[in-house]
């Protein structure tokens, strides 16, 4: 009962954060740079939160984000270019295509129990393979950029000339993904995945089909990446095989790990902090110091890995608990009961 009250308190906190997130763009409306930054942060936040399902819960170090994002982008984009199908539908079809693709890839990988480094390498290679395929596939543009049409209404073709609408669409998507993530975490799939990440044989003898569980996780994650891909194409306004980016894929995994494995809000937190920090570094060190921001970024990541190996979220959690104990003592004269995570 106590934990339920706490959960509500936590939900209230999330609601406050959400309202804040919804209001912030109004203040920065005219600041194009701030809008780009916030939209970028949201893209990473959605992707990293989705990554948490496969990477955090199932413990599969997936680096194939770009493959799913690219597929979603090309599906939604091509549907709009060729058949004038609105990206509102296209992005979900893109999600479906990515999901089916993930099923084809995941079935043999999980069947052969490919894990850890081997899974990371395979999934990373997948992004490059997809990029090469799309570079050679002239039917969808090959190596040249293909621009999305703007002649139809902005709302229909999802082609706005400000970032504001994208920001809000992504915010809604983020909320949905977080809610979904939490649902999964406290369901049969979530418990099975968490246990799987620790010891696969031990979970199998408890009646859990590890292959099917991991496949479900991968497909859900790929579906979200595909949807984001559709939006991504609209935001950038063109299609290009560079969307199959190994860098971005790796970065998503890093955010997931730094945020804290298996913790829903961890990757979100990491995305907000690290991506804005990265962009800030890029902007302030840019020019002659091109590339230096990457070094600073890397040092920060190493520091986190060294001193906070379970990620940022537990740090915030314990701070939150201390605050709660403090206020609990103020109110009742005794420490409040707290739940683990």
């Amino acid at each position: 009962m106590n934990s339920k009250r706490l959960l509500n308190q936590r939900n209230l906190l999330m609601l406050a954060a959400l309202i804040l997130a919804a209001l912030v763009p109004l203040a920065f409306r005219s600041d194009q740079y701030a809008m780009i930054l916030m939209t970028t942060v949201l893209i990473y936040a959605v992707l990293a939160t989705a990554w948490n399902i496969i990477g955090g819960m199932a413990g599969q170090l997936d680096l194939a984000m770009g493959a799913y994002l690219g597929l979603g982008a090309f599906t939604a984009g091509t549907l709009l270019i060729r058949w004038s199908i609105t990206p509102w539908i296209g992005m979900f079809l893109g999600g479906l295509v990515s999901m089916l693709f993930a099923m084809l890839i995941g079935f043999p990988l999980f069947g052969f129990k490919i894990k850890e480094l081997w899974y990371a390498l395979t999934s990373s290679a997948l992004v490059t393979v997809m990029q090469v395929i799309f570079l050679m596939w002239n039917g969808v543009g090959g190596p040249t950029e293909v621009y999305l049409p703007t002649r139809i209404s902005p709302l229909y073709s999802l082609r706005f000339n400000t970032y504001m609408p994208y920001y809000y669409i992504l915010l809604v998507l983020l909320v949905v993904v977080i809610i979904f993530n939490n649902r999964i975490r406290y369901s049969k799939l979530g418990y099975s995945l968490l246990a799987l990440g620790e010891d696969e044989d031990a979970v199998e003898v408890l009646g859990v089909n590890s292959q099917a569980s991991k496949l479900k996780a991968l497909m859900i994650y790929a579906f979200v990446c595909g949807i984001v891909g559709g939006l991504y194409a609209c935001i950038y306004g063109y299609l290009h095989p560079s969307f199959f980016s190994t860098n971005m894929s790796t970065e998503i995994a890093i955010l997931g790990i730094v945020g804290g494995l298996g913790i829903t809000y961890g990757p979100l937190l990491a995305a907000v902090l690290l991506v804005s920090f990265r962009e800030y570094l890029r902007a302030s060190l840019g020019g002659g110091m091109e590339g230096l921001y990457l070094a600073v970024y890397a040092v920060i990541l190493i520091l986190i890995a060294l001193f906070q190996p379970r990620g940022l979220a537990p740090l915030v959690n314990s701070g939150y608990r201390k605050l709660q104990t403090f206020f609990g003592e103020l109110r009742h004269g005794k420490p409040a009961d707290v739940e683990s995570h």
Partner: protein
Amino acid sequence: MENQPMLKVTNLTKKFGNLVAVNNASMEVYPGEIVGLIGPNGAGKTTLFNAITGLYKPENGKVVFKGVNITGFLPHKICKLGMSRTFQVTRAFLHMTVEDTVRVGAYNRRNEKNVLAKVDEIIELCELGDIRTRVCGDLGLAQLRKVELARALATEPEMLLLDEAGAGLNATELSAFMTLLQSLNKDYHITFCVVEHVMQMVMGICQRIVVLDSGELIASGTPSEISHNQRVIEAYLGKRAVNYVN
């Protein structure tokens, strides 16, 4: 004793390269029994368990459980049929709490609506109430062994294979553990096959004992038959066993 064996292993062979870990072993476990599987270190007991529960694919032989040929089945399928196990070296979910660990097992036969009832039942049965919200990584060996038993019990098995579940327990813990096993056997009608080095436990609760040596089955019988069997004594140098019975 019922006439249909619950578990029937026939001519099972498992090799690791040139090493024959289990050699042409055949054994049966009947419903309601507690069968002890003993043998010196490296005899192949764990390997036999792994081959029965689907973690290893045997080179040769057949495993039949409740009349179903489960040879080559995946472990989760075998668990669905009603057989689960514990591990010799505890394989806890170190970052998960005790209740969440038990919950993973409970989902085997339960859905979201009634899973919690099973978790509560098992936690009470195994007397884990005090530590139910503790993370497994913080627990001691005796507690971990109990948690492993609990999560296997939560799958609602008809048969449990315990691999040295008594190892590392002190005298008090051991006798509590034996009482629990006997009550599970009597009241919950769970059939057991236990690998055990702790002779006090083997002799105390097993109705029948099977002896494995260098991958081969060398004897089978009641505890007192086994402890007087010349071949077993030779293979095992089981002084403690003999002393205990005499």
